[in-house]
């Protein structure tokens, strides 16, 4: 269905096949008809047409001459009106142009996009009714102007032609009316039974409207049940807070105040709820220039490299359960009582423990201990205890009421499946979830579903669940529907639609309203009603819409004096007791007896032995050896150690498996998004696939190469997957990302990668011990965008320590053979009105790749597909390179975004025979697409290899949705044409026009490139370098400023600020 097609009215228009046939028979010559209704030409159709489109109704009666007249006019208007009709509510035609609307310029609307339920504020660019680009909302606490990759990819998701386009009932296309009728019947049935057998499954819910609706549903049907399905491990933080405080308090970090951060398998920089905000906060602590020579220090202890691990000053790879043991010992060293019995740490770990304890204690109140989401609840509780003991609460961390709405008795997905198997589920509403695909294998959700008579599914796609559902309902996209959501700190925002549903979708609010028989059934009314109290009048409502946040809606921090937050003395192990989890655990808090070493009078968190002993299997003889061999691993004996481990491995050494949401396609919900599929994964730079990530030592021991297929066996289940070797992976840890192996995702996502849910268990969704692997001898072709991670001694990424920097601020360029502008035979470029330049602060960059995808969205960059990526033809204009420094077992990994360097003496310009790449007066190195004949010499001659060539016709020229999605100011390139980063010249030109109209210069900060705007850490600065007061000029004045490959004499306008590390001297003497 094309977006132009209006919804047909439910009544009045009947298709009269007989009449149509008669008309056709009576007509001579061809008759063109657009719909069966028009063919029938019934009076009802005409009447409806007149109602819907007064003009068009008359057009049907028009003669040829009149038609031709109109044709001319409509051609002129086609560009304006071609794409979608405005929302059906509050329809305002452009009789009088809206204030602020300038034709040709986008307007921005504040709304929110959610990830795992949590809101991220965005400003969405709207070109004549078409949302084309999401920018961060500077006023939103989870954004501060940046966004993550998912917010960027939401635009493609909105326009995805594979989205579900119609209601389906038992696999047959149906209508909303039929559904509403069925829902009302069901509702009436449940009203009699009090909702017995009615179960609702949702993702995490922060939307106040949805929470109220679910609440209303619960009140109306008291016997109904609501379950929340979370991605792998998502419950542990919640349970940990419950364990620590007796309440599921939400945790909010203040990384900007932290001086020493210990991340225990935690990844705050890619936190689903607040990663963008945390990255910004973290980056502020990393600039010695802004902090009077001080810099925070980040330690990461983790089994598999994360963005936080990449950013860390020190990184210790430890197996998943060892992280917990490490934490217990660390707790003991900083005065938090921890259970005895943990084996004393050896070698490197002991050094780490001493160094960390000393550093944490030296920074009481400015330290932060973070625990990873997939780590068990007791460890989260221990983390809270450590933060309390260090006096961090209220300073670097605080707590608030839960942001998520929580079911009264949340049994989660396992509880739901148990009820299903017991035949207690009559009707299941699966709202925005896909449990048939995304559920642990041991639950066998698909089989359990056989016991459920009625399944209703609301989703953006006709996915695995939608295919088997009795009713599948197409969901309106977040940019198509009214809703609301809270951010990590509770700040609420109203989500407003930018476009009427393209495919006749409805929001979850509307579906629930239909089900509960609400007197309101329209999304706007439902949301408005919810906010009637907080935003009573239109002004406050409009202000909240405009700002993108509801003022003063953040949940206040619990006062540190509050009894809930009374410091915990530590945790103690009490004998195993079934069911000591969730609410029950809280009952144990407050007992007076603490373990040995707990300060008197402090309360102790009790943990059931069964909980904390999940890693008991570790206490085997082999373990200590493994630890020892690890500690030697960095000392250059890699080969022999690897061999040594082989022997161990054959003696039954345990491997472990981590199952985590994929860094680019999440738990699978983004699988049909080509931008995200083709976005290189952090560290591995793989696209379009997941892989079993293994350590170099394991690969050497098992003689595995990248792409070798192995059979993974865990808990009696097997999966054949290819391996990818990841330096920095803990020796015996295998990481496999969830979200691949989709069977019903759409054209883009179907059959990609391997379904890791097949190995997932509900008891331990994120981790499996006792994993065995066997090489199957097969090989799998991966498509990566970077194949070489060694800098080969070239100083592309320059880094130094804080001490080096303070000693010699110019350390980055101290060894340059040439001055910044090396001598040249070519004359200097004549100065222009502006001199655009860019500065990329490698000290701020965390390698999240939001810039890559923002650029893709802004600049209409096509997706080329796995085969083309394999051939080395990806099109990203800005890429993020990773280089490993140091030994393979635990290297330091640096990230470097590489856009066009805009060389003043550009090698590409010299070699183009037709002058298709030229320099402009403002220093931009331009690519003139329609002049390019495609010799590709420019790319060969580009030392930075930032040019991209349309080897084939990559841009989709036929799909109307994708055409509507594109930024109108940016040419869509045809095949045979070279392209590259333009510094977002369309934005520069827009600013030029604006400045010219106002007879002024372009102000500093007026032009934000797409990569700059999206960057969560503000690592990218852009502007006029001839203006010495501009931000970019000041950045380039930093002593850390250096030009990459300066010795080639290219004089790049894009320069880098050297990376700084702040190592702990106690850990630095030995190579990490």
């Amino acid at each position: 269905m094309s977006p132009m097609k209006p919804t047909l009215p439910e009544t009045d228009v009947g298709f009269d096949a007989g009449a149509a046939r008669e008309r056709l028979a009576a007509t001579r010559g061809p008759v063109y008809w657009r719909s069966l209704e028009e063919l029938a030409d019934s009076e009802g159709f005409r009447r409806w047409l007149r109602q819907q489109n007064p003009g068009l109704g008359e057009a049907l009666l028009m003669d040829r001459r009149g038609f031709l007249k109109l044709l001319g006019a409509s051609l002129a208007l086609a560009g304006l009106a071609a794409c979608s009709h405005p929302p059906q509510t509050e329809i305002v035609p452009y009789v009088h142009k809206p204030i602020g609307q300038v034709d040709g310029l986008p307007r921005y609307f504040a709304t929110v996009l959610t990830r795992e339920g949590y809101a991220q504020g965005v400003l969405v660019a709207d070109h004549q009714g078409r949302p084309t680009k999401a920018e961060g909302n500077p006023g939103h606490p989870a954004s501060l102007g940046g966004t993550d990759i998912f917010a960027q990819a939401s635009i493609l998701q909105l326009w995805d032609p594979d989205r579900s386009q119609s209601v389906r009932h038992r696999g047959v296309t149906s209508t909303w009316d039929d559904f509403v009728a069925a829902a009302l019947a069901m509702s009436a049935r449940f009203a009699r039974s009090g909702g017995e057998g009615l179960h609702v499954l949702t993702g995490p819910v922060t939307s106040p409207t949805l929470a109220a609706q679910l609440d209303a549903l619960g009140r109306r049907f008291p016997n109904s049940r609501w379950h929340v399905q979370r991605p792998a491990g998502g419950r542990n933080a919640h349970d940990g807070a419950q364990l620590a405080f007796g309440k599921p308090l939400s945790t909010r970090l203040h990384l900007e105040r932290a001086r020493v951060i210990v991340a225990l398998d935690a990844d705050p920089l890619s936190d689903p709820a607040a990663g963008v905000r945390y990255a910004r906060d973290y980056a502020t602590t990393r600039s010695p220039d802004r902090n009077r020579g001080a810099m925070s220090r980040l330690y990461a202890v983790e089994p598999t490299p994360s963005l936080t691990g990449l950013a860390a000053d020190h990184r210790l790879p430890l197996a998943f359960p060892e992280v917990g043991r490490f934490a217990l010992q660390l707790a003991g060293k900083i005065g938090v009582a921890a259970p005895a019995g943990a084996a004393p740490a050896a070698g490197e770990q002991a050094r780490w423990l001493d160094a960390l304890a000393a550093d944490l204690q030296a920074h009481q109140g400015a330290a932060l201990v973070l625990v990873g989401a997939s780590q068990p609840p007791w460890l989260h509780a221990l983390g809270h205890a450590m933060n309390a003991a260090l006096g961090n609460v209220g300073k670097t961390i605080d707590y608030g009421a839960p942001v998520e709405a929580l079911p009264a008795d949340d049994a989660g997905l396992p509880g739901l499946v148990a009820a299903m198997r017991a035949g207690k589920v009559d009707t299941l509403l699966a709202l925005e979830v896909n449990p048939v695909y995304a559920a642990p294998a041991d639950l066998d959700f698909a089989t359990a579903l056989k016991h459920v008579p009625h399944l209703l599914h609301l989703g953006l796609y006709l996915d695995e669940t939608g295919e088997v559902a009795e009713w599948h309902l197409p969901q309106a996209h977040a940019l198509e529907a009214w809703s609301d959501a809270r951010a990590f700190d509770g700040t609420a925002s109203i989500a407003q639609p930018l476009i009427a549903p393209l495919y006749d979708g409805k929001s979850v609010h509307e579906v629930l309203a239909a089900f509960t028989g609400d007197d309101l059934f329209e999304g706007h009314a439902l949301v408005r009603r919810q906010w009637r109290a907080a935003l009573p009048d239109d002004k406050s409502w409009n202000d909240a819409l405009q700002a993108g946040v509801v003022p003063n809606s953040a949940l206040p921090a619990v006062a540190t004096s509050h009894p809930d937050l009374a410091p915990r003395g530590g945790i103690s192990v009490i004998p195993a007791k079934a069911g000591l989890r969730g609410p029950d655990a809280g009952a144990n808090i407050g007992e007076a007896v603490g373990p040995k070493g707990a300060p008197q009078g402090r309360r102790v968190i009790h943990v059931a032995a069964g909980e904390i002993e999940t890693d008991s299997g570790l206490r085997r003889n082999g373990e200590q050896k493994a630890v020892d061999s690890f500690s030697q691993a960095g000392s250059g004996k890699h080969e022999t150690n690897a061999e040594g481990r082989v022997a161990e491995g054959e003696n039954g050494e345990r491997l472990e498996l981590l199952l985590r949401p994929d860094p680019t396609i999440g738990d699978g919900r983004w699988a049909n998004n080509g931008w995200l599929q083709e976005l290189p994964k952090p560290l591995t730079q793989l696209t379009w696939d997941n892989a079993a990530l293994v350590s170099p030592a394991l690969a050497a021991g098992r003689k595995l190469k990248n792409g070798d297929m192995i059979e993974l066996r865990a808990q009696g289940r097997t999966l054949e997957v290819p391996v990818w070797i990841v330096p920095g992976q803990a020796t015996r840890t295998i990481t496999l990302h969830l979200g691949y192996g989709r069977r019903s995702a759409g054209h883009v996502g179907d059959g990609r990668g391997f379904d890791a849910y097949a190995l997932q268990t509900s008891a331990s969704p994120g981790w499996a011990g006792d994993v065995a692997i066997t090489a199957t001898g097969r090989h799998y072709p991966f498509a990566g965008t970077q194949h070489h991670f060694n800098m080969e001694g070239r100083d592309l990424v320059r880094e130094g320590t804080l001490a080096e920097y303070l000693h010699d601020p110019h350390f980055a360029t101290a060894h340059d053979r040439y001055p910044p502008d090396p001598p040249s035979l070519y004359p200097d470029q004549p100065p222009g009105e502006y001199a655009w330049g860019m500065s990329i602060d490698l000290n701020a960059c965390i390698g999240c790749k939001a810039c890559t995808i923002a650029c893709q969205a802004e600049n209409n960059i096509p997706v080329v597909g796995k085969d083309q990526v394999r051939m080395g033809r990806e099109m990203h204009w800005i890429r993020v390179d990773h280089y490993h420094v140091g030994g393979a077992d635990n290297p330091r990994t640096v990230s470097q975004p590489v856009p066009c360097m805009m060389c003043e003496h550009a090698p590409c310009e010299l070699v183009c025979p037709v002058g298709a790449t030229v320099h402009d007066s403002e220093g931009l190195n331009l690519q003139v697409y329609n002049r390019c004949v495609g010799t590709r010499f420019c790319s060969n001659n580009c030392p930075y290899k930032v040019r991209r060539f349309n080897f084939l016709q990559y841009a989709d020229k036929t799909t109307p949705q994708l055409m509507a999605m594109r930024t109108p100011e940016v040419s869509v390139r045809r095949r045979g044409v070279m392209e590259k980063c333009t510094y977002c010249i369309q934005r520069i030109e827009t600013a030029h026009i604006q400045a010219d109209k106002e007879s002024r210069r372009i102000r500093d900060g007026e032009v934000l490139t797409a990569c700059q705007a999206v960057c969560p850490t503000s690592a990218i600065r852009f502007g006029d370098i001839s203006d010495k007061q501009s931000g970019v000029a000041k950045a380039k004045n930093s002593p850390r400023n250096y030009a990459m490959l300066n010795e080639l004499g290219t004089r790049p306008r894009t320069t880098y600020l050297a990376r700084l590390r702040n190592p702990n001297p106690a850990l630095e003497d030995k190579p990490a």
Partner: protein
Amino acid sequence: MSTVFSREPQLPVIAPGENALSVTRSVSGVVLKLPVGLRWMGSLGFAMMLTGIFLVGICWLLYAGVGIWGLNIPVAWAFAITNYVWWIAIGMGGTFISAAMYVTRQDWRASINRLAESMTVFAVAVSGLFPIFHLGRPWFFYWLFPYPDIMDLWPQWRSSLEWDFWAIIAYLIVSIAFLYVGMLPDLATLRDRARRRLLAIFYGLLALGWRGEAQHWRRLESVTLMLAGLSVPLVFSVHSMVALDFSEGLVPGWHSTIFPPYFIAGALFSGFGMVLVLAIPMRRLFGLQAYLTDRHISVIAKLMLAAGLWIDYSYASEIFTVFYSMDKFDVRMEMNRFLGPYAWLFWSTMAFNFVQIQLLWFERVRRNHVAVFVIALGVLYGMWLERLMLIVTSLYQDFMPSAWGMFYPTFWDFAFLFGSVGLFLSLYLVFSRLMPMLSMYELRKLAHKRNEVEG
């Protein structure tokens, strides 16, 4: 040059007993009388089949784009440019033989100059296709031409590709003119000897009214000399230009001042190789042993050896310069050539272009036409590999390790390579039946002179 070869017992450059009549009879007989043999038809059929693949490849390329080849970023040039350089270099050898030796009055060239000149024309024509088809948008190749564009757009004159365009065009025009002018008396001979009316008209039109007047001969001599004088510098300038396509770039492995002479050496080397590869079967096929004598084969083999030594010196010099410079990018590139994943390219190049040609020092080898043919084929193959090595091993790992990537050819890469060979052979085979493959008037002159000397 004769002094160089003076120690060798002088074999005749034309078989004894040949006179003007026998020359004319046997050479024009190939065109006018020799029945179309099975071998010729078979060869043409094979060549046409390859040409067919070439045409299919071109259609598919125009439809889908250059992405049908294995190109990528960083290796944005590979087979097409290799083929281009290879073919245009082959043309060089022909021009050198016909023009440089004309200027230096080497009369023994009389029996091979037509063969070499026609080879030049076809090789340059085939090579000219590649710069066009390797373009992302081949239909806009004329944008390299400074035509009066309404938007006042001109080519970008600093680009070596622009000059390359001119070099190819100039070279093609001059070599066609040289070939054609040199054929005029022979075309007239064919006109006069043709039995059938249509053939007589065909050759008559081509002969441009040549009547053999003294005036005609005088003009022919001066035009030929002029064209030869133009061609000789063109040999050097065109291939220097081709070399600058690479050395203008700052890619390690390309950015080198040695390239122009180095490329000229390579061009002559492969050109002589191709002359041998064509002449040895051709003399058999058309029974021209009396004119394309063992002496010719031996001399060209020696020339090929000389050019080979020149290029081997270039290799050594290039490698020396790399290590002498201690430029980290260049050293890395060179070590990659020796030891990297494409090391087989380098070592094969060395085997074909350095090792095997040393056999040509021996007269016994030079007299063995099978051996010379095989060595010449090896030289052609080696020179093709060398160009591929120069292009691919310079590009695939340049400055940014993050952007390094391998090149793997596709079916269509090979289709264009073998298809172009097919096209060349087809043109050549057809030409050999339509035009006198040896220069009759020059051979007559030679025979006359020899007969006079011998009394």
